[in-house]
């Protein structure tokens, strides 16, 4: 009796173990997408060149497909799978930069004549992606024409704000403010282009009030502004360079100068100064000084950085007041500038050209940079609205063959 029971127990244990030992892991599927309180049935994006998909100094469909709003729309299954953008055929508007050599660093552009118009016509109520390169907050509110990109997107049918409201959106991403802060950076620290923090706050509130009045049912995700003095365009050229001016042509450190004198540490020199420096600009007199338009002084830099802090406080306050998701681009880029980012054991940085996170213009994110940014949007949206939208698969942006590569090839 005793033995019989023991045997039965043994047999049962053996069976259980055999089953457990055969466990096998199946590939995982994304969990069912849930948008939570957010409704992506009619998603419209307002924004700047970053949302527009500008890369390497131009607008081209292959990078518009990896624009932040297009990636968000794809992940969220927005607009019944049809998120319209003003896609532009090769060679882009204007012709995109192409890397021709790393050492020395040289670029050309995609050959061909830029198209005169997008190959996706504007829907009657406007493109879903209304982001426009160069748009400051005031322009998003009030400008309907006046530059090729405004005309390309808006096509004379009213402002970005108006076309957004006209679509009766259920969800809006607002990626504005970057241009207000980047303008003085690109202008070599020309602070006359820098609006005051109260002015920015007033404009941003005005934009939010208009959205609240015109699209009262839309939920919002508001992106703040990354530190723009650390983009490759501004942070690549150091004030001290190694130059072959020592005894016998040996390399010695040379502190560059502008008209006001030697440039102290912390000064930013813009990328276009590189060929000038190679031609001798910025070296001790009688060499010509670096032009002020390519140098951001320490004081100018501080003013810009202070303004970004103030703008971001205004955006955060509005996000709080409107119940919006706050997309903390500042924190994202702060981490990336300091540490880079590791994806699948591969390290990417903001180094110009070689880092992988910025496109060849040193201002706009690469496809991968755009994907990382889209995931930051999605994380903020998921958190704020109890949604469960899966992140963009970054391996598709780093390694061929990829869905995006195929989409590009089949466009």
């Amino acid at each position, binding site marked *: 009796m005793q033995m019989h029971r023991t045997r039965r127990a*043994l047999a049962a*244990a053996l069976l259980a*173990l055999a089953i*457990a*030992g*055969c*466990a*096998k*892991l*199946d*590939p*995982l*599927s*994304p969990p069912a997408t849930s948008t939570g309180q957010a409704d992506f049935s009619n998603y419209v994006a307002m924004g700047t060149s970053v949302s527009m998909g500008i890369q390497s100094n131009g607008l081209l469909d292959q990078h518009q497909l990896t624009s932040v709003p297009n990636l968000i729309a794809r992940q969220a299954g927005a607009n019944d799978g049809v998120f319209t953008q003003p896609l532009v055929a090769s060679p882009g508007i204007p012709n995109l930069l192409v*890397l*021709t*050599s*790393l*050492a020395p660093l040289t670029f050309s552009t995609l050959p061909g004549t830029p198209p005169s118009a997008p190959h996706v016509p504007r829907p009657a109520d406007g493109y879903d992606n209304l982001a426009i390169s160069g748009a400051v907050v005031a322009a998003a509110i009030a400008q309907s024409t006046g530059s090729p990109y405004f005309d390309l997107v808006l096509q004379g049918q009213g402002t970005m704000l108006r076309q957004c409201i006209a679509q009766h959106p259920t969800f809006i991403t607002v990626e504005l403010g970057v241009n207000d802060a980047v303008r003085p950076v690109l202008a070599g620290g020309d602070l006359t282009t820098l609006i005051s923090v109260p002015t920015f706050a007033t404009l941003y509130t005005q934009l939010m009030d208009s959205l609240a009045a015109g699209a009262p049912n839309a939920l919002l995700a508001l992106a703040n502004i990354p530190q723009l003095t650390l983009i490759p365009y501004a942070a690549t050229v150091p004030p001290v360079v190694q130059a072959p001016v020592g005894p016998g042509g040996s390399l010695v450190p040379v502190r560059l100068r502008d008209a006001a004198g030697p440039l102290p540490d912390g000064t930013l020199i813009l990328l276009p100064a590189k060929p000038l420096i190679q031609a001798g600009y910025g070296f001790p007199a009688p060499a010509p000084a670096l032009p002020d338009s390519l140098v951001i002084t320490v004081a100018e830099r501080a003013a810009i950085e202070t303004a970004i802090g103030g703008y971001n406080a205004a955006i955060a306050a509005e996000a709080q007041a409107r119940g919006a998701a706050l997309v903390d681009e500042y924190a994202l880029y702060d981490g990336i500038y300091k540490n880079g*980012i*590791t*994806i*699948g*054991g*591969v390290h*990417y940085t903001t180094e110009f*050209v*070689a*880092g*992988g996170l910025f*496109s*060849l213009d040193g201002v706009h994110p*690469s*496809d991968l940079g755009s*994907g990382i940014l889209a*995931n930051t949007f999605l994380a903020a949206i998921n958190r704020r609205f109890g949604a469960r939208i*899966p*992140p*963009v*698969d*970054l*391996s*598709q942006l*780093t*390694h*061929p063959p990829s869905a995006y590569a195929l989409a590009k090839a089949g466009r």
Partner: protein
Amino acid sequence: MTTRPRIRPFTAPLALAAMLGLPGVAHAAGYGLYEMGARALGQAGAFTARADDPSSIYFNPAGLSRLDGQELLLSPNLIVFKAEFAGVSPNPGYGVHEQTVDKAFPPVAAYYARGVGRKFAAGIGIYNPYGLEVQWANPDQYTGRYISTRSKITPFYFVPTAAVALNDRLRVGAGANIVWSNVQLERHIAAYDPFLDQTVDVGTVKLDSHDSFGVGFNAGVQWWPRGKVKFGGTYRSKVAIDYTGRADFTQRITGDAAFDPIVSATFPPDQAVTTSIPFPAQGSLGIAYQSCPSWAFEGDLNYTWWGVFDKLEVNFAQTPSRNLVAVENWKNAINVRVGAEYRKGGTAPWSYRAGYYFDETPQPASGVGPLLPDADRHGISLGVGHHGASTTIHAYTLWLITPDRSTEGKNRDDYNGTYSLGSFVTGLSLGQNFH
């Protein structure tokens, strides 16, 4: 004048170690192994309080003093291991499935000891209380190839041990742990190709250490007061091994004529490399209950100071910019083992055993990755033994149930998903007593 032969004291154990085969992947948590004797393993390793055969050298050196005469014990094991991985977004993405090359390892523990009147004994053991090999299939396509395609740690412990009975009830023992070890690590190298705006596979690096050396000790105590209860405790010190070796870099041509020369110009040369891996301290407390001569039960509580494995650093002599620091941040971990042994009257020729253990993983979710994916383990064992006049033979089988382990989105290399570990362990102990 005569030429004295040069004494090479390490040659013999090394040769013996080579004969004994290689360790398998970790079958206790982390990269620990516990497969040091079939009698103990039949009871899920719960043996600290009762260890009394030559495998006491591992399980509790105090127990070695119970031997009488010379005894040889050989414990070959077969460990079958496989790991699978299913990826999630953002990297490497949903739908990704990877698996390791199926591995079957035959680690052998070997003991020789000599006891005098069950009062005093001395012996040596050779075994692998740590060890690891994780080799991923299809390394050229494997999505984790820039992190690790193969990792292998092989230590041999050579353990001279002595034990003595202080009185009828109390016995103590201690041994030196003389350790040789080598490590092999392989992975692919990625580079960002700005011409293509893509990440490309530009080569491989294989790290192969020389045999490196370390020392430690172990000690144990057994207290068998009158009655049915027995106690045991044992401790094995940490052994930290500093490895030196060679790193072999091999460039792989991507076919991008603009980029390949750039890679060539900066590709590291083959060079010397150093790294360091600790084999942590372990302690065990056991309590056994001998309800009658036929039945014995034991419960052991083991503790491993895995917290010493805080990082894995690989330093290249010529290209320090390629140095690797993998933050491991392991935590100390417990395992609990319970076992039972039935031998009719305590003298019958056949004995039967069963046991269960729970082994807590020391690895935080951030470290669960291609180098070593670890998980909690539940082990269930069955064993049988035959006791002859001068020979013993024991056999055991151990089923390991490891709940799937998710990286919880925290992997330090941003390589996230779920790992499934499967393994099966079986082994024998063949003992010969030379009275």
